[in-house]
Protein backbone atom coordinates (compact mmCIF):
# COMPACT_ATOMS: atom_id res chain seq x y z
CA UNK A 1 0.00 0.00 0.00
CA UNK A 2 1.91 3.06 -1.14
CA UNK A 3 -0.69 5.57 0.05
CA UNK A 4 -1.22 6.21 3.74
CA UNK A 5 -3.75 8.46 5.44
CA UNK A 6 -2.96 10.55 8.47
CA UNK A 7 -4.41 13.29 10.64
CA UNK A 8 -2.53 16.07 12.41
CA UNK A 9 -3.54 18.85 14.77
CA UNK A 10 -1.86 22.11 15.68
CA UNK A 11 -2.85 25.01 17.87
CA UNK A 12 -1.48 28.53 17.82
CA UNK A 13 -1.83 31.82 19.59
CA UNK A 14 -1.26 35.11 17.87
CA UNK A 15 -0.88 38.67 19.14
CA UNK A 16 -3.27 41.31 17.88
CA UNK A 17 -1.74 44.66 17.03
CA UNK A 18 1.67 43.76 18.40
CA UNK A 19 3.80 46.79 18.87
CA UNK A 20 7.42 47.48 19.67
CA UNK A 21 7.69 50.89 18.09
CA UNK A 22 4.52 52.83 18.75
CA UNK A 23 2.24 52.66 15.75
CA UNK A 24 -0.85 54.84 15.84
CA UNK A 25 -3.98 54.86 13.75
CA UNK A 26 -6.08 58.00 13.65
CA UNK A 27 -9.40 58.99 12.11
CA UNK A 28 -11.65 61.99 11.78
CA UNK A 29 -15.30 62.11 10.92
CA UNK A 30 -17.62 64.92 9.85
CA UNK A 31 -21.38 64.92 9.53
CA UNK A 32 -22.78 66.44 6.36
CA UNK A 33 -25.85 68.72 6.58
CA UNK A 34 -28.06 65.79 5.52
CA UNK A 35 -26.74 63.51 8.27
CA UNK A 36 -24.56 61.43 6.01
CA UNK A 37 -21.20 60.50 7.54
CA UNK A 38 -17.79 61.15 5.97
CA UNK A 39 -14.91 59.19 7.53
CA UNK A 40 -11.29 60.05 6.81
CA UNK A 41 -8.82 57.39 7.86
CA UNK A 42 -5.61 56.12 6.36
CA UNK A 43 -6.05 52.38 6.82
CA UNK A 44 -5.42 50.74 3.46
CA UNK A 45 -7.80 48.03 2.33
CA UNK A 46 -5.61 45.51 0.52
CA UNK A 47 -8.57 43.24 -0.13
CA UNK A 48 -9.05 41.94 3.39
CA UNK A 49 -12.10 44.18 3.75
CA UNK A 50 -11.00 46.75 6.34
CA UNK A 51 -12.98 49.44 4.52
CA UNK A 52 -16.18 47.44 4.93
CA UNK A 53 -15.38 46.52 8.54
CA UNK A 54 -14.53 50.12 9.51
CA UNK A 55 -17.72 51.33 7.83
CA UNK A 56 -19.72 48.81 9.88
CA UNK A 57 -17.96 49.94 13.08
CA UNK A 58 -18.71 53.63 12.39
CA UNK A 59 -22.34 52.95 11.46
CA UNK A 60 -22.90 50.90 14.60
CA UNK A 61 -21.00 53.24 16.93
CA UNK A 62 -23.03 56.27 15.80
CA UNK A 63 -26.31 54.45 15.22
CA UNK A 64 -26.93 55.16 11.54
CA UNK A 65 -27.49 52.82 8.57
CA UNK A 66 -24.41 51.35 6.90
CA UNK A 67 -25.33 53.06 3.62
CA UNK A 68 -25.04 56.52 5.22
CA UNK A 69 -21.31 56.12 5.83
CA UNK A 70 -18.67 57.02 3.23
CA UNK A 71 -15.21 55.76 4.05
CA UNK A 72 -12.51 57.89 2.44
CA UNK A 73 -9.17 56.18 2.86
CA UNK A 74 -7.82 57.23 -0.50
CA UNK A 75 -5.92 60.38 0.37
CA UNK A 76 -3.12 60.42 2.92
CA UNK A 77 -2.99 64.22 2.79
CA UNK A 78 -6.55 64.70 4.03
CA UNK A 79 -6.54 61.58 6.22
CA UNK A 80 -4.79 61.50 9.57
CA UNK A 81 -1.97 59.05 10.26
CA UNK A 82 -2.36 55.31 10.03
CA UNK A 83 0.89 53.39 10.12
CA UNK A 84 -0.51 50.67 7.91
CA UNK A 85 -2.20 47.35 7.28
CA UNK A 86 0.18 44.94 9.01
CA UNK A 87 0.72 43.13 12.31
CA UNK A 88 -2.94 42.07 12.36
CA UNK A 89 -3.85 45.58 13.52
CA UNK A 90 -6.43 46.78 10.96
CA UNK A 91 -9.63 45.77 12.75
CA UNK A 92 -8.32 46.31 16.28
CA UNK A 93 -6.22 49.49 16.15
CA UNK A 94 -7.57 51.06 12.93
CA UNK A 95 -11.07 49.97 13.96
CA UNK A 96 -10.68 51.50 17.41
CA UNK A 97 -9.55 54.80 15.86
CA UNK A 98 -12.72 55.09 13.76
CA UNK A 99 -14.82 53.83 16.69
CA UNK A 100 -13.46 56.52 19.06
CA UNK A 101 -14.08 59.21 16.41
CA UNK A 102 -17.60 57.88 15.83
CA UNK A 103 -18.31 57.94 19.56
CA UNK A 104 -17.34 61.66 19.67
CA UNK A 105 -19.69 62.30 16.72
CA UNK A 106 -22.46 60.43 18.51
CA UNK A 107 -21.98 62.64 21.60
CA UNK A 108 -22.17 65.80 19.46
CA UNK A 109 -25.33 64.53 17.71
CA UNK A 110 -26.90 63.91 21.13
CA UNK A 111 -25.93 67.44 22.31
CA UNK A 112 -27.71 69.06 19.37
CA UNK A 113 -30.64 66.62 19.51
CA UNK A 114 -31.07 67.40 23.22
CA UNK A 115 -31.61 71.05 22.34
CA UNK A 116 -34.05 70.20 19.55
CA UNK A 117 -36.04 67.74 21.68
CA UNK A 118 -35.70 69.77 24.89
CA UNK A 119 -34.46 66.70 26.72
CA UNK A 120 -31.30 65.71 28.53
CA UNK A 121 -28.64 64.17 26.28
CA UNK A 122 -28.25 61.38 28.85
CA UNK A 123 -31.82 60.26 28.13
CA UNK A 124 -31.35 59.97 24.39
CA UNK A 125 -30.49 57.00 22.22
CA UNK A 126 -29.70 56.68 18.52
CA UNK A 127 -30.88 53.76 16.46
CA UNK A 128 -31.02 53.32 12.70
CA UNK A 129 -30.62 57.04 12.03
CA UNK A 130 -33.17 58.28 14.55
CA UNK A 131 -32.58 59.95 17.93
CA UNK A 132 -35.32 59.29 20.46
CA UNK A 133 -35.97 59.79 24.16
CA UNK A 134 -35.51 56.56 26.11
CA UNK A 135 -38.90 55.22 27.06
CA UNK A 136 -40.70 57.81 24.92
CA UNK A 137 -39.98 56.77 21.31
CA UNK A 138 -42.58 59.23 19.99
CA UNK A 139 -40.28 62.07 20.98
CA UNK A 140 -37.72 61.65 18.25
CA UNK A 141 -35.75 63.43 15.55
CA UNK A 142 -33.84 61.94 12.65
CA UNK A 143 -30.06 62.29 12.55
CA UNK A 144 -30.56 64.07 9.21
CA UNK A 145 -32.66 66.75 10.95
CA UNK A 146 -30.10 67.01 13.76
CA UNK A 147 -27.35 67.58 11.21
CA UNK A 148 -29.47 70.17 9.39
CA UNK A 149 -30.25 71.95 12.69
CA UNK A 150 -26.56 72.01 13.58
CA UNK A 151 -25.62 73.45 10.20
CA UNK A 152 -28.38 75.96 9.56
CA UNK A 153 -29.70 76.70 13.07
CA UNK A 154 -26.90 76.35 15.62
CA UNK A 155 -24.01 77.24 13.32
CA UNK A 156 -22.03 74.17 14.32
CA UNK A 157 -20.13 71.43 12.55
CA UNK A 158 -20.61 67.98 14.03
CA UNK A 159 -17.23 66.30 13.92
CA UNK A 160 -15.13 63.86 15.87
CA UNK A 161 -11.58 62.61 15.97
CA UNK A 162 -10.14 59.39 17.34
CA UNK A 163 -6.73 57.87 17.78
CA UNK A 164 -5.62 54.44 18.89
CA UNK A 165 -2.06 53.71 19.97
CA UNK A 166 -0.50 50.74 21.67
CA UNK A 167 2.35 52.36 23.59
CA UNK A 168 5.92 51.26 23.07
CA UNK A 169 6.80 48.37 25.35
CA UNK A 170 10.55 48.57 26.12
CA UNK A 171 12.24 45.24 26.82
CA UNK A 172 14.75 44.99 29.69
CA UNK A 173 17.89 43.76 27.93
CA UNK A 174 19.03 41.86 31.04
CA UNK A 175 15.88 40.01 31.98
CA UNK A 176 13.73 40.24 28.86
CA UNK A 177 10.91 41.60 31.01
CA UNK A 178 8.40 44.18 29.74
CA UNK A 179 6.47 46.55 31.98
CA UNK A 180 3.43 46.66 29.72
CA UNK A 181 2.24 43.90 27.46
CA UNK A 182 3.47 44.40 23.89
CA UNK A 183 0.18 43.52 22.21
CA UNK A 184 -3.51 44.39 22.47
CA UNK A 185 -5.06 40.93 22.65
CA UNK A 186 -4.31 37.30 21.86
CA UNK A 187 -6.21 35.35 19.22
CA UNK A 188 -6.24 31.57 19.23
CA UNK A 189 -6.67 29.03 16.46
CA UNK A 190 -6.53 25.31 15.77
CA UNK A 191 -6.13 23.40 12.56
CA UNK A 192 -6.80 19.74 11.81
CA UNK A 193 -5.26 18.40 8.62
CA UNK A 194 -6.17 15.14 6.91
CA UNK A 195 -3.53 14.04 4.42
CA UNK A 196 -2.61 11.17 2.19
CA UNK A 197 1.10 10.39 1.78
CA UNK A 198 2.50 8.29 -1.06
CA UNK A 199 5.54 6.45 0.31
CA UNK A 200 6.84 5.70 -3.20
CA UNK A 201 6.80 9.25 -4.57
CA UNK A 202 6.88 11.18 -1.29
CA UNK A 203 3.93 13.26 -2.40
CA UNK A 204 1.64 14.67 0.29
CA UNK A 205 -1.98 15.36 -0.72
CA UNK A 206 -4.11 17.42 1.63
CA UNK A 207 -7.64 16.04 1.78
CA UNK A 208 -9.21 18.29 4.36
CA UNK A 209 -8.40 21.29 6.56
CA UNK A 210 -10.67 22.02 9.49
CA UNK A 211 -9.91 25.28 11.19
CA UNK A 212 -11.26 27.04 14.23
CA UNK A 213 -10.39 30.68 14.90
CA UNK A 214 -11.15 32.75 17.98
CA UNK A 215 -11.40 36.28 16.59
CA UNK A 216 -13.02 37.97 19.56
CA UNK A 217 -16.00 39.21 17.62
CA UNK A 218 -16.52 38.55 13.91
CA UNK A 219 -17.69 41.99 12.80
CA UNK A 220 -18.18 40.64 9.28
CA UNK A 221 -18.27 36.83 9.41
CA UNK A 222 -18.11 36.40 5.63
CA UNK A 223 -14.91 38.44 5.46
CA UNK A 224 -13.48 36.47 8.42
CA UNK A 225 -14.31 33.29 6.53
CA UNK A 226 -12.50 34.72 3.50
CA UNK A 227 -9.42 35.34 5.66
CA UNK A 228 -9.54 31.79 7.06
CA UNK A 229 -9.95 30.19 3.63
CA UNK A 230 -7.22 32.34 2.09
CA UNK A 231 -4.93 31.64 5.04
CA UNK A 232 -5.60 27.92 4.69
CA UNK A 233 -4.25 27.88 1.16
CA UNK A 234 -1.27 30.06 2.08
CA UNK A 235 -0.54 27.73 5.00
CA UNK A 236 -0.88 24.71 2.73
CA UNK A 237 1.63 26.35 0.38
CA UNK A 238 4.05 27.16 3.22
CA UNK A 239 3.70 23.62 4.53
CA UNK A 240 4.16 21.72 1.30
CA UNK A 241 5.31 23.89 -1.60
CA UNK A 242 6.64 27.37 -1.10
CA UNK A 243 10.33 27.97 -0.69
CA UNK A 244 12.38 31.03 -1.53
CA UNK A 245 15.69 29.46 -0.49
CA UNK A 246 15.59 25.68 -1.00
CA UNK A 247 19.13 25.17 0.39
CA UNK A 248 19.05 27.80 3.15
CA UNK A 249 21.36 29.13 4.56
CA UNK A 250 22.96 28.68 1.14
CA UNK A 251 21.25 31.04 -1.30
CA UNK A 252 22.15 29.08 -4.44
CA UNK A 253 19.41 27.69 -6.63
CA UNK A 254 16.81 30.09 -5.35
CA UNK A 255 13.93 30.70 -7.69
CA UNK A 256 14.49 33.65 -9.94
CA UNK A 257 11.05 34.04 -11.43
CA UNK A 258 7.35 33.58 -10.74
CA UNK A 259 7.14 30.15 -12.34
CA UNK A 260 9.80 28.63 -10.07
CA UNK A 261 8.00 29.60 -6.87
CA UNK A 262 5.30 27.04 -6.26
CA UNK A 263 2.04 28.50 -5.02
CA UNK A 264 -1.01 26.27 -4.58
CA UNK A 265 -3.60 26.45 -7.33
CA UNK A 266 -7.25 25.57 -7.49
CA UNK A 267 -6.55 21.86 -8.05
CA UNK A 268 -4.71 21.63 -4.71
CA UNK A 269 -7.76 22.93 -2.87
CA UNK A 270 -8.77 20.47 -0.15
CA UNK A 271 -12.09 20.36 1.58
CA UNK A 272 -11.99 23.39 3.89
CA UNK A 273 -14.18 23.86 6.93
CA UNK A 274 -14.07 27.11 8.88
CA UNK A 275 -15.27 27.62 12.42
CA UNK A 276 -15.43 31.08 13.95
CA UNK A 277 -15.28 31.30 17.74
CA UNK A 278 -16.20 34.53 19.51
CA UNK A 279 -14.35 35.19 22.75
CA UNK A 280 -14.52 38.98 22.92
CA UNK A 281 -11.57 41.21 23.78
CA UNK A 282 -12.41 43.79 26.45
CA UNK A 283 -11.06 46.81 24.56
CA UNK A 284 -11.43 45.70 20.94
CA UNK A 285 -14.03 47.37 18.72
CA UNK A 286 -17.23 45.49 19.64
CA UNK A 287 -14.93 42.85 21.17
CA UNK A 288 -13.00 42.10 17.96
CA UNK A 289 -9.47 40.69 18.01
CA UNK A 290 -7.53 39.79 14.87
CA UNK A 291 -7.45 37.20 12.11
CA UNK A 292 -4.94 38.72 9.63
CA UNK A 293 -1.49 37.18 9.80
CA UNK A 294 -2.40 34.25 12.01
CA UNK A 295 -4.52 32.66 9.29
CA UNK A 296 -1.59 30.86 7.68
CA UNK A 297 0.30 29.83 10.82
CA UNK A 298 -1.49 26.71 12.01
CA UNK A 299 -1.46 24.59 8.84
CA UNK A 300 2.25 23.71 8.46
CA UNK A 301 2.44 22.20 11.96
CA UNK A 302 -0.79 20.28 11.46
CA UNK A 303 0.51 18.97 8.13
CA UNK A 304 3.82 17.80 9.66
CA UNK A 305 1.90 15.99 12.40
CA UNK A 306 -0.43 14.44 9.81
CA UNK A 307 2.55 13.18 7.80
CA UNK A 308 3.94 11.57 10.97
CA UNK A 309 0.55 10.00 11.64
CA UNK A 310 0.48 8.65 8.08
CA UNK A 311 3.97 7.20 7.65
CA UNK A 312 5.67 7.44 11.05
CA UNK A 313 8.43 9.89 10.20
CA UNK A 314 9.00 13.48 11.22
CA UNK A 315 9.81 15.99 8.55
CA UNK A 316 11.18 18.92 10.54
CA UNK A 317 11.87 21.34 7.71
CA UNK A 318 9.37 23.23 5.64
CA UNK A 319 8.14 22.85 3.03
CA UNK A 320 7.44 19.12 3.30
CA UNK A 321 8.55 18.31 -0.23
CA UNK A 322 8.48 14.82 -1.75
CA UNK A 323 12.29 14.74 -1.47
CA UNK A 324 12.23 15.45 2.26
CA UNK A 325 9.52 12.83 2.83
CA UNK A 326 11.52 10.19 0.95
CA UNK A 327 14.76 11.07 2.77
CA UNK A 328 12.96 10.83 6.11
CA UNK A 329 11.60 7.40 5.12
CA UNK A 330 15.08 6.36 4.05
CA UNK A 331 16.52 7.32 7.45
CA UNK A 332 13.73 5.42 9.17
CA UNK A 333 14.49 2.30 7.12
CA UNK A 334 18.18 2.68 7.97
CA UNK A 335 17.23 2.73 11.64
CA UNK A 336 18.27 6.37 11.97
CA UNK A 337 14.95 7.89 12.86
CA UNK A 338 16.31 11.24 14.01
CA UNK A 339 15.25 14.60 12.66
CA UNK A 340 17.97 16.58 10.96
CA UNK A 341 19.11 19.65 12.84
CA UNK A 342 21.96 20.91 10.68
CA UNK A 343 22.18 24.64 10.26
CA UNK A 344 19.29 25.36 12.59
CA UNK A 345 18.55 25.60 16.25
CA UNK A 346 15.75 23.10 16.57
CA UNK A 347 14.70 22.04 20.01
CA UNK A 348 13.09 18.72 19.43
CA UNK A 349 12.76 15.71 21.65
CA UNK A 350 10.39 13.07 20.43
CA UNK A 351 9.71 11.66 23.91
CA UNK A 352 8.86 15.07 25.36
CA UNK A 353 6.78 16.08 22.35
CA UNK A 354 4.82 12.84 22.23
CA UNK A 355 4.45 12.96 26.00
CA UNK A 356 3.02 16.46 25.80
CA UNK A 357 0.67 15.61 22.99
CA UNK A 358 -0.36 12.45 24.78
CA UNK A 359 -1.14 14.06 28.15
CA UNK A 360 -4.60 13.17 29.45
CA UNK A 361 -4.20 9.90 27.62
CA UNK A 362 -4.39 11.76 24.33
CA UNK A 363 -8.00 12.77 24.98
CA UNK A 364 -8.98 16.02 23.36
CA UNK A 365 -12.24 17.89 23.41
CA UNK A 366 -12.73 17.60 19.69
CA UNK A 367 -15.16 15.44 17.83
CA UNK A 368 -14.27 15.44 14.17
CA UNK A 369 -15.79 12.66 12.06
Amino acid at each position, binding site marked *: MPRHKGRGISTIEYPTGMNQNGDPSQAWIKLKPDGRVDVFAGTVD*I*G*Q*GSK*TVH*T*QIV*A*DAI*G*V*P*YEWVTMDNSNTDSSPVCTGSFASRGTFIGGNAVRFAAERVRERILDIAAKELEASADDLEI*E*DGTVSVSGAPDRNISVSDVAAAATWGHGELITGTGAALKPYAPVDPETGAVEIEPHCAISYASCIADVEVDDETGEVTVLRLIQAYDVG*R*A*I*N*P*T*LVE*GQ*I*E*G*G*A*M*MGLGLGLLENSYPYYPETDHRGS*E*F*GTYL*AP*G*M*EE*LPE*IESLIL*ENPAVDGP*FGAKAIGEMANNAQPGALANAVFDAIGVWVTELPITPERVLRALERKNDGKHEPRHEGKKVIFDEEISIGTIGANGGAVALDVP
Partner: protein
Amino acid sequence: MKLTVNGRAHDLASDPLRPLLHVLRDELDVTGPKAGCQQGSCGTCTILVDGEARRSCLTPLALVDGAEVTTIEGLGDATRLNALQAAFHQYYGAQCGFCTSGMIVAAHALLERNPAPTRHDIQTALAGHICRCTGYVKILDAIEAVARGETFTETNGDRQPGVEESVAKTGVSG
Protein backbone atom coordinates in the same frame (compact mmCIF):
# COMPACT_ATOMS: atom_id res chain seq x y z
CA MET B 1 -2.78 45.07 -38.19
CA LYS B 2 -6.47 45.17 -37.54
CA LEU B 3 -8.18 43.88 -34.46
CA THR B 4 -11.44 44.43 -32.66
CA VAL B 5 -11.32 44.97 -28.90
CA ASN B 6 -14.60 44.81 -27.02
CA GLY B 7 -16.48 45.70 -30.20
CA ARG B 8 -14.24 48.61 -31.21
CA ALA B 9 -12.16 48.29 -34.38
CA HIS B 10 -8.48 49.29 -34.24
CA ASP B 11 -5.84 49.65 -36.92
CA LEU B 12 -2.43 49.31 -35.30
CA ALA B 13 1.09 49.92 -36.59
CA SER B 14 2.79 48.39 -33.55
CA ASP B 15 5.62 45.85 -33.47
CA PRO B 16 3.98 42.59 -34.57
CA LEU B 17 5.90 40.66 -31.89
CA ARG B 18 4.78 42.95 -29.08
CA PRO B 19 2.72 41.01 -26.52
CA LEU B 20 -0.98 41.75 -26.90
CA LEU B 21 -1.07 42.48 -23.13
CA HIS B 22 1.11 45.56 -23.55
CA VAL B 23 -0.73 46.69 -26.67
CA LEU B 24 -4.01 46.52 -24.74
CA ARG B 25 -2.74 48.19 -21.58
CA ASP B 26 -0.29 50.78 -22.95
CA GLU B 27 -1.66 51.61 -26.40
CA LEU B 28 -5.40 51.08 -26.09
CA ASP B 29 -5.77 51.90 -22.36
CA VAL B 30 -7.61 48.64 -21.75
CA THR B 31 -6.24 47.82 -18.28
CA GLY B 32 -8.57 45.01 -17.18
CA PRO B 33 -6.01 42.36 -18.18
CA LYS B 34 -3.31 42.59 -15.49
CA ALA B 35 0.44 42.28 -16.05
CA GLY B 36 1.29 39.66 -13.42
CA CYS B 37 4.12 37.20 -14.02
CA GLN B 38 4.24 37.98 -17.76
CA GLN B 39 5.43 34.48 -18.48
CA GLY B 40 2.16 32.58 -18.71
CA SER B 41 2.17 31.23 -15.15
CA CYS B 42 -0.40 33.28 -13.25
CA GLY B 43 -3.46 33.84 -15.45
CA THR B 44 -4.14 37.49 -14.60
CA CYS B 45 -3.78 38.66 -18.24
CA THR B 46 -6.36 36.22 -19.61
CA ILE B 47 -8.53 37.51 -22.46
CA LEU B 48 -10.79 35.99 -25.10
CA VAL B 49 -9.56 35.70 -28.69
CA ASP B 50 -12.53 34.80 -30.86
CA GLY B 51 -14.15 33.37 -27.73
CA GLU B 52 -11.19 31.25 -26.61
CA ALA B 53 -9.34 32.05 -23.37
CA ARG B 54 -5.75 33.12 -24.08
CA ARG B 55 -2.85 34.54 -22.06
CA SER B 56 -2.34 37.95 -23.59
CA CYS B 57 1.23 38.14 -22.21
CA LEU B 58 2.26 35.21 -24.44
CA THR B 59 0.23 36.29 -27.47
CA PRO B 60 2.16 38.34 -30.03
CA LEU B 61 0.10 41.02 -31.71
CA ALA B 62 0.60 39.40 -35.14
CA LEU B 63 -1.25 36.31 -33.95
CA VAL B 64 -4.49 38.23 -33.42
CA ASP B 65 -4.49 40.12 -36.73
CA GLY B 66 -8.14 40.28 -37.76
CA ALA B 67 -9.35 38.69 -34.53
CA GLU B 68 -12.06 39.67 -32.10
CA VAL B 69 -10.61 40.32 -28.64
CA THR B 70 -12.75 40.50 -25.51
CA THR B 71 -11.44 41.59 -22.11
CA ILE B 72 -13.19 41.87 -18.75
CA GLU B 73 -14.36 45.33 -19.85
CA GLY B 74 -16.23 43.70 -22.72
CA LEU B 75 -18.20 41.41 -20.41
CA GLY B 76 -19.75 44.18 -18.31
CA ASP B 77 -18.96 47.29 -16.31
CA ALA B 78 -19.71 48.70 -12.87
CA THR B 79 -23.16 49.89 -13.90
CA ARG B 80 -24.06 46.73 -15.78
CA LEU B 81 -22.39 43.67 -14.30
CA ASN B 82 -22.63 40.40 -16.15
CA ALA B 83 -23.68 37.31 -14.20
CA LEU B 84 -20.13 36.25 -13.29
CA GLN B 85 -19.15 39.72 -12.14
CA ALA B 86 -22.30 39.97 -10.03
CA ALA B 87 -21.68 36.50 -8.61
CA PHE B 88 -18.07 37.33 -7.64
CA HIS B 89 -19.44 40.43 -5.94
CA GLN B 90 -22.25 38.61 -4.18
CA TYR B 91 -20.11 35.68 -3.02
CA TYR B 92 -17.04 37.72 -1.95
CA GLY B 93 -15.04 36.09 -4.75
CA ALA B 94 -12.49 38.91 -4.83
CA GLN B 95 -10.15 40.29 -2.20
CA CYS B 96 -7.25 42.30 -3.63
CA GLY B 97 -8.78 41.82 -7.08
CA PHE B 98 -5.60 41.30 -9.07
CA CYS B 99 -6.53 37.80 -10.28
CA THR B 100 -10.22 38.60 -10.66
CA SER B 101 -10.42 39.81 -14.27
CA GLY B 102 -8.47 36.76 -15.48
CA MET B 103 -10.57 34.41 -13.35
CA ILE B 104 -13.85 35.83 -14.65
CA VAL B 105 -12.77 35.82 -18.30
CA ALA B 106 -11.56 32.19 -18.00
CA ALA B 107 -14.76 31.20 -16.21
CA HIS B 108 -16.78 32.87 -18.96
CA ALA B 109 -14.96 30.83 -21.61
CA LEU B 110 -15.55 27.65 -19.58
CA LEU B 111 -19.28 28.28 -19.23
CA GLU B 112 -19.56 29.03 -22.96
CA ARG B 113 -18.27 25.58 -23.85
CA ASN B 114 -19.60 23.73 -20.79
CA PRO B 115 -22.66 25.44 -19.28
CA ALA B 116 -23.00 22.87 -16.48
CA PRO B 117 -19.50 22.19 -15.15
CA THR B 118 -18.87 20.23 -11.95
CA ARG B 119 -16.75 21.82 -9.22
CA HIS B 120 -13.91 19.61 -10.40
CA ASP B 121 -14.37 20.80 -14.02
CA ILE B 122 -13.99 24.41 -12.81
CA GLN B 123 -10.91 23.55 -10.76
CA THR B 124 -9.32 21.91 -13.80
CA ALA B 125 -10.23 24.72 -16.21
CA LEU B 126 -8.92 27.44 -13.87
CA ALA B 127 -5.96 25.48 -12.48
CA GLY B 128 -3.49 27.92 -14.02
CA HIS B 129 -4.99 30.96 -12.32
CA ILE B 130 -3.21 31.85 -9.08
CA CYS B 131 -5.09 33.61 -6.30
CA ARG B 132 -3.20 34.34 -3.09
CA CYS B 133 -6.03 35.96 -1.11
CA THR B 134 -9.22 33.95 -1.23
CA GLY B 135 -8.13 30.33 -1.01
CA TYR B 136 -10.32 29.83 -4.12
CA VAL B 137 -13.36 28.68 -2.13
CA LYS B 138 -15.53 31.72 -2.77
CA ILE B 139 -14.38 31.97 -6.39
CA LEU B 140 -15.61 28.41 -6.97
CA ASP B 141 -18.84 29.18 -5.11
CA ALA B 142 -19.44 32.20 -7.38
CA ILE B 143 -18.84 30.31 -10.64
CA GLU B 144 -20.99 27.39 -9.47
CA ALA B 145 -23.80 29.80 -8.65
CA VAL B 146 -23.79 31.12 -12.22
CA ALA B 147 -23.55 27.58 -13.63
CA ARG B 148 -26.68 26.49 -11.77
CA GLY B 149 -28.53 29.52 -13.12
CA GLU B 150 -28.67 31.68 -10.02
CA THR B 151 -29.72 35.21 -10.99
CA PHE B 152 -28.46 38.41 -9.49
CA THR B 153 -30.66 41.45 -9.26
CA GLU B 154 -27.82 43.52 -7.83
CA THR B 155 -26.13 45.25 -10.71
CA ASN B 156 -24.94 48.29 -8.81
CA GLY B 157 -21.31 47.86 -7.80
CA ASP B 158 -21.70 50.23 -4.85
CA ARG B 159 -23.76 47.89 -2.76
CA GLN B 160 -21.99 45.85 -0.09
CA PRO B 161 -23.78 42.51 -0.01
CA GLY B 162 -23.94 40.50 3.15
CA VAL B 163 -23.68 43.38 5.56
CA GLU B 164 -27.25 43.12 6.85
CA GLU B 165 -26.77 39.41 7.09
CA SER B 166 -23.53 39.75 9.02
CA VAL B 167 -25.05 42.29 11.36
CA ALA B 168 -27.86 39.84 12.04
CA LYS B 169 -25.36 37.02 12.63
CA THR B 170 -23.16 38.88 15.08
CA GLY B 171 -25.79 40.97 16.78
CA VAL B 172 -23.80 44.16 16.14
CA SER B 173 -26.79 46.39 15.63
CA GLY B 174 -26.99 49.80 14.05
